[in-house]
């Protein structure tokens, strides 16, 4: 038996009778087999979407940004909505991989690999929007401070849009490093059990020559811990800086100090919803129900109801401040044009999806229902998309001059671009699910003996013991 034990009151994190080898078999064998029919169907649909997205972007670059329905009043529409939405989704992955690591939450091990992959793909999708939205995309490198022959004229370090460039690119790089450093040992596992030459070669290259040496593990642990420590403030900073894009402006509806925490809570909220959507499908198709258990889903649903309520509080605080602040423009933005007016419908979709419906998760039965969780995860993501749309468009479409008031609906290249990022996201995710271990194999093994179902059985007899008695009993057993 193990030298450590966890209370039997805690639900096991790995169900079924498992040993280390069985864990490897369960998680790695889908990589070695042929993917199912559903995989091909899903992958093909994703590729179609990606192609349509590429065509939409081509169309916009060829004819200019005028093919979008943005106008003088509404300069930011679907493009920035989608950017903020995708960046937000990424946040759950880092929260699971970094913050929950620092908090020693064992349940993160079942879901962190897929969630981190989701982060990376979501940030890749997000990055497309501000770049394409620049219009002359071939000038995109102008956002980087590099020595040039125009002075050199540097970028404006006072601008939140430039902070965004640094925040998003740092976030992407650090997430990628964190994710890949965790993948190296698992690639080595695939390499060492590979039967075909090609697999041995490719995973041999991908595993960087990992052997599992104790010294290397010691450094690996130190690296993971420090990367987690770095990623924790990083993930909070990223959406904070995204919110600065709005909060540092003087547009009523944007110019509020509540934005950073409100954006971060919303980001985690929508990110967890996307993790749920992906993992419910992944666990079903790859038969990983014993690793991604109802307990995992329940834990994430608790985060969803918490962050959803934080977001709800923020909505109410904004309304209160708009009234209490006695600024007629801000009052008009919130009460006349956001909660009512031609785009008012989007505000109420947001309220329903983000604040009202997640309250079902106060009930344990609902938190542990796969069907309810799946439906809710979709609803939350729709709601969070509308939150960004509401913030951006309903603050812009009624400005100070009634003659420039406008309405906004997207043109097909805008919709196509958004669809295309779904294509990119799911193409990457399907490839990940096929060729990468979707669960961190080594990490599951390291919690198996304390949190595996078969190792928890028979532990009741130790429950009442003090630490000394427990340690005595363990040593007694080892002596025989």
């Amino acid at each position: 038996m193990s030298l450590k034990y966890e209370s039997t009151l805690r639900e096991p994190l790995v169900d079924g009778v498992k040993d280390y080898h069985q864990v490897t078999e369960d998680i790695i064998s889908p990589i070695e087999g042929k993917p199912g029919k559903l995989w091909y169907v899903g992958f093909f649909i994703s590729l179609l979407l990606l192609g349509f997205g590429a065509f939409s972007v081509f169309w916009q670059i060829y004819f200019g940004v005028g093919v979008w329905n943005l106008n003088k009043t509404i300069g930011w529409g679907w493009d920035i909505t989608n950017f903020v939405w995708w960046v937000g989704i990424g946040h759950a992955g880092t929260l699971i991989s970094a913050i929950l690591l620092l908090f020693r939450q064992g349940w993160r091990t079942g879901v962190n690999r897929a969630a981190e992959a989701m982060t990376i793909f979501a940030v890749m999708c997000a990055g497309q929007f501000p770049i394409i939205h620049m219009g002359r995309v071939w000038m995109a490198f102008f956002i980087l401070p590099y020595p040039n022959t125009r002075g050199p004229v540097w970028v404006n370090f006072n601008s939140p849009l430039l902070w965004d460039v640094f925040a998003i690119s740092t976030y992407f790089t650090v997430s990628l490093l964190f994710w890949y450093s965790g993948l190296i040992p698992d690639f080595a596992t695939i390499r060492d059990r590979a039967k075909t030459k090609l697999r041995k070669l490719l995973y041999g290259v991908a595993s960087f020559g990992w052997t599992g040496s104790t010294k290397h593990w010691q450094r690996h642990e130190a690296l993971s811990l420090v990367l987690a420590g770095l990623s924790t403030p990083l993930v909070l900073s990223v959406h904070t800086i995204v919110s600065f894009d709005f909060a540092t402006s003087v547009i009523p509806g944007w110019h509020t100090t509540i934005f950073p925490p409100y954006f971060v809570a919303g980001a985690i909220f929508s990110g967890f919803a996307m993790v749920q959507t992906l993992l419910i499908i992944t666990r079903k198709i790859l038969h990983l129900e014993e690793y991604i258990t109802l307990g995992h889903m329940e834990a994430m649903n608790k985060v969803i109801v918490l962050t959803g309520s934080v977001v709800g509080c923020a909505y109410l605080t904004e309304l209160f401040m708009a009234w209490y602040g006695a600024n007629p423009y801000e009052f008009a933005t919130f009460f006349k044009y956001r909660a009512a007016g031609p785009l008012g419908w989007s505000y109420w979709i947001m309220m329903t999806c983000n604040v009202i419906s997640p309250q079902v998760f106060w009930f344990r039965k609902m938190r542990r229902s796969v069907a309810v969780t799946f439906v809710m995860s979709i609803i939350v993501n729709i709601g969070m998309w509308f939150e960004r749309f509401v913030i951006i468009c309903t603050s812009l479409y009624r400005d100070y001059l009634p003659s420039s008031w406008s309405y906004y609906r997207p043109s097909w290249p805008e919709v196509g671009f958004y669809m295309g990022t779904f294509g990119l996201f799911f193409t990457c995710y399907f490839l990940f699910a096929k060729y990468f271990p979707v669960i961190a194999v080594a990490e599951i093994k390291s919690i198996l003996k304390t949190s595996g179902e078969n190792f928890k059985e028979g532990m009741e007899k130790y429950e009442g013991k003090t630490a000394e008695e427990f340690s005595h009993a363990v040593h007694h057993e080892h002596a025989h």
Partner: protein
Amino acid sequence: MAVKNFVVGLFDDEAVLFPAVKKVRNAGYKLHDVYTPFPVHGLDHAMGLRETSLHTAGFIYGITGTTTALGFMSWVFNVDWPLNIGGKPHFPLPAFIPITFELTVLFAAVGMVMTFCYLCQLMPGVKKHIFHPRQTDDKFVMAIELTEKTNAEEVKRFLKDAGAHDINEQRAEAGWWYGRFDKDDADIHAYPANA
């Protein structure tokens, strides 16, 4: 590095491995390494390895990032091209914080990962000897280096008593080399195991 002789034993359980490591160290054998499929907490201490200084390296990289960002932005705004942007000051420290923070994190993370790869000799194209294919799956593999003073048979008996199984002798390159995992390595297999 060099080609060396090893006695290799497999353990099934970390609870057996810990006392075995202790015995090997007490007996004075040269413990080359223990390979495990996952990080076994406390094994590094049991083997007498010192703590890693990777954290310190990370801190230094982070500080480098902080000074690079602050120094560069201050130089651009004050020395190289002092531009009046909306009447704002040339040294707006609060506005410099976001980028300074991001570069601190970026430098620390990238620097640490590169240092980690350097210290552990991890790179695409690097090849190392794998003592047993299941050392990355479910077995804990202990490799004891043979010197002129150790007798292979004695070490094998010793490992067996310590709870190991599948004990064998291997002659292998102890370091890394450029190679492919799908190719057998002629230089190593050229040596008979008990040459």
